[in-house]
C-alpha cells in the first residue's frame, strides 16, 4: 500500500461576488514510503494548493477540497481539526518557500523547534532543548547551542531554511512536503539545501513531495515526477524516462527552455510562448492548447484523458515523439 494516495483531489476557491475558481482539478497520485515525488509546474499550476490541501492548511473559509487524500489508509480530508493537528508536525512535515517570513520573528529558534517536540513527543522543555540542539547540528548549523537562543533575523537565509527543515523533521515524519524550498535562496546555497534534504530523507526513510518549478531540482532529487498544468497532472514519469524522452509538449517545452552550457553556441533557447493567463478551461479542450506548438484542431475540442503511456501517464492528443517527423 502506498504511504499517500491522492485520489481525484479538487480544490475550489469560492468567495462572495467572485466566480468560483478551481485551482486543483481531480488530480491523483501516489507516494510510496521513502520515495521522492516531484510536483512540477509554473506558478498557478496548482502545485502549492495541492500541498496545502494534503496538509489541511487551506483557508477554512472560501476553500473547498473534494476527493480523498489517504495517508496510511486514513482519509485526511475527513479528519476533524483536532485529529489533523495530531498528525501535522508528527506524521506530516512541511518546509516552506520563504524561510524568513515562515519563522516567527519574535521567538528564539530554539523554542520554535522545541514546541513541536513538546507537542508531539511529550518531551519536557529540557529534553526538547537537548534534542533541538542535536537536530540543528544534523541540519548542518554550526554552534547549535548558541543558535538555539538566537532569533530568525540573526541567521543567514540558508541557515533559516536549515532551521525550518529541522522543525519539519523534528518528529521524524513519514512524509515531508517541501514547497519550493530553494527559490528564495542564493544559487550557491540552493545546492547545499537540496543535498541536505536528499541526505536526510535517505537517512530517515522519509517520503518527500518536492514542489518546484525548476526541472534542475527534479533531476537531482526526484524518483518520480508529476508535471502539472492548469490544476491537472499532464504527465507522470520516472525521472530518467522524463529526461530521456519527455512526451508532453509542455514538459518538453520546460526542458527546452533551460539554458545549457553544453549546447552549441548560437543555438536559441526555446521558451514556451504565452503564459498561464492564456489557459482555456479543461472542460472541452486541452488547457495548454493555446500555447502548444503541437496543437491540433482536436486539442481545442476534446479534453485529453490521462492515460498510461510508455510506463508513465500522459494527457495529450499529440505527444512529442509521435510528431517528430512532421515537425522536422
Amino acid at each position: 500500500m502506498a504511504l499517500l494516495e491522492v485520489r481525484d483531489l479538487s480544490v475550489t476557491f469560492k468567495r462572495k461576488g467572485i466566480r468560483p475558481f478551481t485551482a486543483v482539478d481531480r488530480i491523483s497520485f501516489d507516494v510510496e514510503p521513502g520515495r521522492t515525488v516531484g510536483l512540477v509546474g509554473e506558478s498557478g499550476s496548482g502545485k502549492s494548493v495541492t500541498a496545502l490541501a494534503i496538509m489541511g492548511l487551506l483557508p477554512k473559509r472560501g476553500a473547498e477540497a473534494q476527493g480523498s487524500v489517504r495517508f496510511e489508509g486514513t482519509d485526511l480530508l475527513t479528519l476533524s481539526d483536532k485529529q489533523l493537528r495530531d498528525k501535522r508536525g508528527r506524521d506530516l512535515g512541511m518546509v516552506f518557500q520563504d524561510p524568513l517570513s515562515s519563522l516567527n520573528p519574535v521567538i528564539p529558534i530554539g523554542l520554535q523547534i522545541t514546541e513541536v517536540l513538546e507537542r508531539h513527543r511529550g518531551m519536557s522543555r529540557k529534553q526538547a532543548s537537548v534534542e533541538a540542539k542535536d537536530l540543528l547540528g544534523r541540519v548542518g548549523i554550526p554552534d547549535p547551542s548558541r543558535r538555539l537562543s538566537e532569533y530568525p533575523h540573526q541567521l543567514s537565509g540558508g541557515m533559516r531554511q536549515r532551521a525550518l527543515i529541522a522543525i519539519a523533521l523534528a518528529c521524524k515524519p513519514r512524509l515531508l512536503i517541501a514547497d519550493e524550498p530553494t527559490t528564495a535562496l542564493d544559487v550557491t546555497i540552493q545546492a547545499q539545501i537540496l543535498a541536505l534534504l536528499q541526505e536526510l530523507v535517505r537517512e530517515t526513510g522519509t517520503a518527500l513531495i518536492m514542489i518546484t518549478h525548476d526541472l534542475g531540482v527534479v533531476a537531482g532529487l526526484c524518483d518520480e515526477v508529476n508535471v502539472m498544468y492548469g490544476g491537472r497532472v499532464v504527465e507522470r514519469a520516472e525521472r530518467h524516462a522524463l529526461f530521456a524522452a519527455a512526451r508532453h509538449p509542455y514538459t518538453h517545452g520546460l526542458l527546452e527552455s533551460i539554458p545549457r552550457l553544453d549546447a552549441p553556441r548560437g543555438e536559441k533557447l526555446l521558451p514556451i510562448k504565452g503564459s498561464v493567463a492564456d489557459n482555456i478551461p479543461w472542460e472541452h479542450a486541452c488547457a495548454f492548447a493555446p500555447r502548444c506548438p503541437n496543437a491540433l484542431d482536436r486539442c481545442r475540442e476534446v479534453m485529453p484523458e490521462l492515460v498510461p503511456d510508455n510506463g508513465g501517464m500522459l494527457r495529450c492528443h499529440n505527444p512529442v515523439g509521435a510528431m517528430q517527423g512532421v515537425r522536422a
Partner: protein
Amino acid sequence: MLRFIVRRLLQAVPTLLVLSILVFAWLRLLPGGPAGALLGDKATPQKLADLNHVLGLDQPIFVQYGKFLGRILSGDFGASLISGDSVLAEVGRAFPATIELAVFALVLAIAFGIPLGYAAARFHGRLIDNATVLTTLIGVAVPVFFFGVLLKYIFAQKLGILPPSGRQDVTIDATHITGFFTLDGLLTGEFDAFWDAVKHLILPAIALASIPFAVIVRITRASVLDVQSEDFVRTAESKGLTTPVIRRRHILRNALLPVSTTIGLQTGLLLAGAVLTEKVFNIPGLGYLLAQGIERRDYPRLQALLLLAALVYVIVNLLVDVSYAIIDPRVRVR
C-alpha cells in the same frame, strides 16, 4: 539591555531641551509677558519695568533662558499665583491622584480593549466585528468630558450607586502614606477606605478610558488581522500546534507589538483627558490644577505643569521603547 536604556536616555535629553525652549518661548508670548501676567490689572508701566528688572527680563534672551533652565534644574518653579504655595509642592500633592486615575483608566482600556479587538479580528466581517468597529468609532466621536458628565448624571445623580466627585468620602478617616488612596487603603489594612477610593475611581476612570479603549481595540484588531495571514502562522499550523498555543505564542505576541506602542501613545491622551475628567469629577489632580490655572492664568503653575507633562511623556516613551525591545528582538540589535 542596559546600554540600550542609557542610549535612549541620552536621546531624550535634546527632546527635553527643545521642549524647555518651547515652554520658555510660550511664557514670553503670554499677553503682557510674565510680568504682566503676575501684576494683572495692577500693571502700570513703572511697575512692569521694575518687575521686569527683578525677574531679570531686561537681560539678553540667552541669559534669561540660561537662568530659566538653571532654576528648573534646581527644582525652583516659583509660587502659585492662586495659592501662594510652592508650585512644586502643589504638583507633588496632586500627582498621585492623577497617576492613580490614569493607571486605573489605562488598565481598564487594556483589559477590555485587547480581548475585544482580538475577538473582532477572529470573527472578521461578522456581527461582533462590525458592532465593535462601530462602537469604537462612536467612542472617538463622544467628547470625553461629556461622557464623564453623562456617567455622573446617570450613576451618581439618578441612580446614586456611585459617588459623583472627589477621591474619597470625607467622613472616612483614612490614613494616607503614599497619596495613592487605593494603595494606602491596602497598605494600612483600612479596607473600607480602599473600597471607597475604588468606588470614587470607577466613573472617572471609565470616562478617561473611553478614547484609549477605542484606539486599543482598533489597533489590536488591525494588527491581529495582519498577523493572522503571516507565513509563520501557517508554519505553526503545519507543526500541528494546538490552537491556544498558536494564538498566544504566534499571533498575539506579534500582534501586540504595535499595540504596545499605541498604549504608550495613549499616555499623552490620558494626560490631556485628565484635565477634562478631573474637572468633571472634582478630583484634585494635575488636570484640575491645570484647568484652574488656565481659568486664573496662573503662569508659574502652568509652566511647571507643561514641563512635567513633557517629562512624563519622555519617560513613558522610554518605557515603551524598552518594553518594545523586550518583546521584539529585532529592535535590540539595532
